[in-house]
């Protein structure tokens, strides 16, 4: 019930109601539990509804932003965050289109993960070097152009296979429009929507520590 109310406040972009619902939940259950029981299910439901054609991308983006801002505001009220959870590297690979990355970042942050943003237009070698140097346990990559997706093989290779290498999670329009593309490129973790970012983060890294 509460999740539904939260979701509809997000979709109608009612920032005040979003803030109030979050505040109540935080006071009642504590930070971690509020994220767990309210934010994550709402963001996942919104992503899934977009995947199924019932919501528009603009709504996914706006709800992610509003949620992230509301959380930031509450956390600031409470004093600075103690960020100890796993860090996830995030980048736009080869091309310049940043909206996918922004949406994924909002959803991850709102779900309690720390995000290390590497920017856009990076080639395989540069991105692998950055991610390996930072020892991120997971690297999420967004692409919009097919030719960028094709070069992901090189990124996979550059990251190597030793146990220290981050888990590579990819997503973006070419993977959605051609569901067999990920398999063809030998990529295991392919996200259909931003909701899948949470799914993979939890699957490989577990639930984040309190922020």
């Amino acid at each position, binding site marked *: 019930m509460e999740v539904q109310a939260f979701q509809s406040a997000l979709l109608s*972009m009612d920032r005040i109601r979003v803030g109030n619902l979050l505040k109540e939940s935080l006071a009642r259950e504590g930070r971690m539990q509020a994220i767990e029981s309210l934010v994550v299910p709402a963001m996942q439901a919104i992503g899934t509804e*977009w995947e199924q*054609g019932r*919501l*528009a*991308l*603009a*709504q996914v*983006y*706006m709800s992610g932003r509003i949620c992230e801002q509301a959380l930031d505001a509450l956390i600031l009220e409470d004093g600075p965050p103690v960020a100890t959870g796993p860090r996830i590297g995030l980048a736009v690979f*080869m*091309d*310049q*289109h*940043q*909206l996918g990355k*922004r949406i994924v970042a909002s959803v991850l942050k709102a779900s309690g993960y720390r995000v290390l943003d590497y920017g856009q237009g990076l080639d395989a070698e540069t991105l692998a070097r950055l991610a390996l140097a930072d020892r991120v346990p997971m690297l999420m990559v967004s692409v919009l*152009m*097919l*030719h*960028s997706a*094709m070069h992901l093989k090189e990124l996979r290779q550059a990251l190597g296979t030793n146990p220290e290498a981050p888990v590579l999670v990819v997503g973006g329009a*070419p993977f959605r*429009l*051609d569901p*067999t*593309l990920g398999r*063809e490129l030998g990529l295991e973790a392919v996200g259909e929507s931003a909701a899948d970012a949470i799914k993979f983060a939890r699957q490989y890294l577990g639930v984040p520590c309190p922020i």
Partner: protein
Amino acid sequence: MPHMTPKERIFTALSHREADRVPFVLALTLHGAKELGLTIRQYFSSAANVVEAQIRMQQRYGHDALIGFSYAAAEYEAWGGEAIFVEDGPPNSGEPIFKNLEALDHLEVPRIEACPELQTSLEIIRQLKSRAGNGIPILGVVLSPFSLPVMQLGFDLYLDLLYGDRERFWLLMAANQVFATAWANAQLEAGATALAYYDPLASPSMIPMDLYRETGFKVACDTLKQISGPTITNLASGSTLGVIDLIAQTGTQAIGVSSLEDLVELKSRCAGRLGVVGNLNGLAMVRWTAKETEQAVREALVKGAPGGGFVLSDNHGELPWGVPDEVIGTLAETVRTWGQYPAGSDHA
């Protein structure tokens, strides 16, 4: 039925009648570079290259239109932006030219004559027209004033504008409309037969329909009124079913449809109002075998052809660079073999 020219075929189909066979459009924008052994940047740098390749490819595959379009970021170059070229895909727009919404208070609409890239495009259309004559339609492209801002501002800032600052939104629309109209009409004057009006933001996959109705829909109605030739609205592979009723009221002749939607349903929803153009999956086509190609084309013919009103094409309006020549050849041959009425079935 007597043999038709490509132009008669397309016009008959778009008048919702059956032509001598189903017309097909191969949007081979990038493949011309391969055809001439040039890099993509070299290829687009001269009108003569594009014209030569377009004509050669049309003669080889027998498709029913010539494409006068180079790449979407050329319009962005007209606004002072940068196009980034790569070796194995389409050029993309670089950094947004407007870094904040305040920049929209001082807009200056670029002049078509002042942009070398657009002048090259016009020259392509002129030369195609003089070489190909009247029998083959020449398709131009114009980005809708409503979708161009994704490049001008970046997608996120544009959504902030759309949701948060309607006054500046309309300022930008007014400027973009002046530009789009001038650009569209210059192409028609140069010899383009029709224009694809690219408006992916009109898709229900992109923005909610109540928002479209009060923004992009009004922009489309107003802009298309000022474009003095036929248009095909293309949502660049986004879903269309939820917006067909509105698009049908904008004054456009046809709609480019997504591979994720059923052609039979699309045809019945568009019947008599909009021609349907599509919907082979260009991204999947990169790896299609000959058998898969034939199957996909025949299925589209069976579903789309009855009663006319259908032009076979891809779902986006551009075949990706990686689509092999063999697949394009099989596609074309399948339409020639199975495209006569009753199309797609085992009559031949």
